[in-house]
């Protein structure tokens, strides 16, 4: 097929951050196919160096608006690891509620506002407001509001949380507020299942595409891991030596991208909801499993488009998990606590969490005055860029006979399926600062 196609999607829409898709097809042969990251680097590492131990969280929160709670928690874990700060069980539970809330908020924003329109062949959610499918939009909005309400309650504010501090919280929700949250969560669970049904019955679903790759994420014996866990890979299994994560993950520079790429045992790997599902699906809650089953999503699934469904399943799981956590808080009698005492000392700490888009690592080195001298972050989306590139390279030949508009849409949908957080991924680069 001697086809000439020039595709240059500048600043892909409905993704966070700035990325370009470039496809240059000459006489049916791929001359150039690139996933480019053009986001301006913001040099967060420069911002962190020299800062006090108790300022790191609020600065790293600003790496990303959508996963600010995730960055905050990974940052606190790293600092607490460096200074040997213990957290109470109540704090642990509240932080898990926070991470659930953020996961819910980010996933429903992505599935509902960013990916959903593609399934209905729309440019955005806005046209739904005046269509016969307005109900579906209202469900998305309701679930989004639930997630925001929860993270506002636990963290003080969804974007750039206020209540999260070293060793604990500045303020905790009251029993009355938690009871109201429980009520809203229960109602939200019903809505989630209804939305899943709608997507299954009223839309064409996601493309059927498959490329075997490695999936990496956290796993824990106790539960479907988000806040705590060990690094796990579908290829190589559990890796317990978390402080030496850079022996596991290899980041490297590519010229078409201001963000680094990463690899482990293959040329690329994937992190995120689908990866977590592939590693830990047995530990999903009942509702989570119900959503997965509705779409025949079983581990191991090699279709990156199914990341969207994995996110929806995780949303349902987060709700059920949160209901359990709130009950635990009531059992232990929620009360005001003072954050644990600790001594400022030299040290290095690593904090790892699963945030909506995948495994996030913060690594800080503090000097004897508690000031940061070296910082590194491994961002989930960084770890996905290489996988996106490889997926594109497999996908294009499979759809090369389709009209140009279709190829373009499919490439965009592929990128969107990963739910990339491009601003985050350009901010962390390994640096020593003088």
């Amino acid at each position: 097929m001697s086809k000439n196609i020039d595709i240059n999607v500048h600043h892909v829409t409905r993704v966070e951050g700035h990325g370009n898709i470039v496809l240059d097809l000459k006489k049916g042969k791929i001359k150039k196919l690139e996933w480019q990251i053009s986001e301006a680097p913001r040099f967060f590492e420069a911002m962190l160096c020299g800062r006090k131990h108790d300022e790191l969280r609020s600065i790293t929160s600003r790496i990303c608006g959508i996963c600010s709670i995730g960055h905050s928690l990974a940052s606190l874990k790293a600092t607490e690891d460096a200074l040997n700060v213990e957290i109470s069980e109540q704090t642990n539970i509240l932080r898990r509620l926070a991470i659930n809330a953020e996961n819910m908020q980010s996933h429903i924003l992505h599935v509902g506002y960013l990916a959903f329109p593609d399934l209905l062949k729309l440019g955005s959610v806005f046209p739904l407001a005046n269509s016969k499918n307005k109900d579906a939009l209202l469900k998305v909005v309701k679930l989004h509001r639930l997630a925001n309400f929860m993270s506002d309650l636990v963290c003080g504010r969804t974007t750039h949380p206020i209540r999260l501090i070293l060793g604990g919280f500045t303020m905790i929700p009251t029993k009355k507020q938690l009871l109201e949250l429980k009520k809203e969560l229960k109602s939200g669970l019903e809505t989630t299942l209804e939305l899943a049904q709608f997507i299954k019955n009223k839309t064409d679903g996601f493309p059927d595409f498959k490329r075997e790759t490695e999936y990496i994420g956290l796993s824990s014996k106790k539960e479907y891991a988000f806040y705590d866990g060990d690094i796990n890979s579908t290829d190589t299994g559990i890796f317990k030596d978390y402080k030496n994560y850079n022996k596991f993950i290899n980041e490297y520079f590519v010229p078409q991208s201001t963000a680094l790429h990463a690899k482990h045992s293959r040329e690329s790997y994937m992190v995120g909801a689908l990866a977590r599902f592939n590693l830990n699906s047995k530990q999903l809650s009942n509702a989570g499993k119900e959503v997965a089953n509705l779409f025949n999503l079983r581990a191991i699934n090699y279709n990156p488009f199914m990341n969207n469904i994995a996110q929806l399943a995780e949303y349902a799981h987060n709700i059920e998990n949160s209901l359990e956590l709130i009950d635990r808080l009531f059992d232990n009698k929620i009360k005001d606590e003072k954050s644990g005492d600790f001594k400022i000392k030299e040290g290095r700490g690593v904090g790892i969490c699963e945030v909506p888009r995948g495994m996030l690592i913060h690594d800080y080195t503090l000097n004897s005055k508690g000031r940061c001298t070296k910082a590194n972050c491994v961002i989930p989306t960084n770890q996905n860029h290489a996988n996106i590139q490889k997926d594109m390279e497999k996908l294009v030949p499979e759809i090369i006979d389709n009209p140009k508009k279709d190829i373009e849409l499919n490439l965009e949908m592929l990128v969107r399926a990963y739910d990339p957080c491009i601003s985050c991924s350009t901010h962390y680069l390994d640096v020593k600062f003088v």
Partner: protein
Amino acid sequence: MKPKVAFFDFSSCEGCQLQIANLEEEILDLIEIVDVVSFREVMKEHSDEYDIAVVEGSIMRPMDEHRLRKIRSRCKTLVALGACATIGGVNKIRNQWPVEEVKKEVYNDADLKDNKFFNVSQTKAVNEVVPVDYYIHGCPINRDEFKRVITSLALGKEPVIPNYPVCVECKKNENVCLFELGKFCLGPITRAGCGAICPSNGGACDGCRGILSKPDVECVMDLLKRYDLTYEEMKSRCVLYNTGVFNPKDGMTFVRRRKNE
């Protein structure tokens, strides 16, 4: 005629645009009163014809300045959204060091000479490149303030942004003053409009909405003594969002000198 509104983002965490998505049902009201013609984060459609441009993020590279100038030439009204756009925000922290030093440390010897993606200069707020008509401050913005500004623009009236410190809102909220809890809060010199959300949640104000007034020298010295802080520590707090105002290289230029000195 509904005004046409377009949203743009530069170097930021996009948290401020997220607040607009977080309007939830009210976003349907928003699209009733204005015509959203471009909002990359949530819609595919884009138009180059708009009356109001809402810009988030700081400006870091010549290619960004170029894009911003194009936006300014196409719109009648430009609104800077969020601390990165209004005052430079956290992005300005790295302005303490020269650009070449920072680039070398980060990318070492990678050949970036003609790569326009990496051609980074000192961080600038939007008004350091083009004139700005209205500012929506904060990191992130306050949704209510955003709604007030947009409805004012849709009604053809000037939005009112508070010209008084956070303390006014904090006291109205009946918060226990954080100074009494041993924390050093920048509320007394920071612009209000956020509802004192951080102090209301137990966190000291970091000045993300911009410094309103220069505090008096002796007053600051007294406070530092009372709360056992050094001048260096205070400057370090101020640098978080207000590096533009509190250049750490200078001496005591960010405080008001006495009249009889």
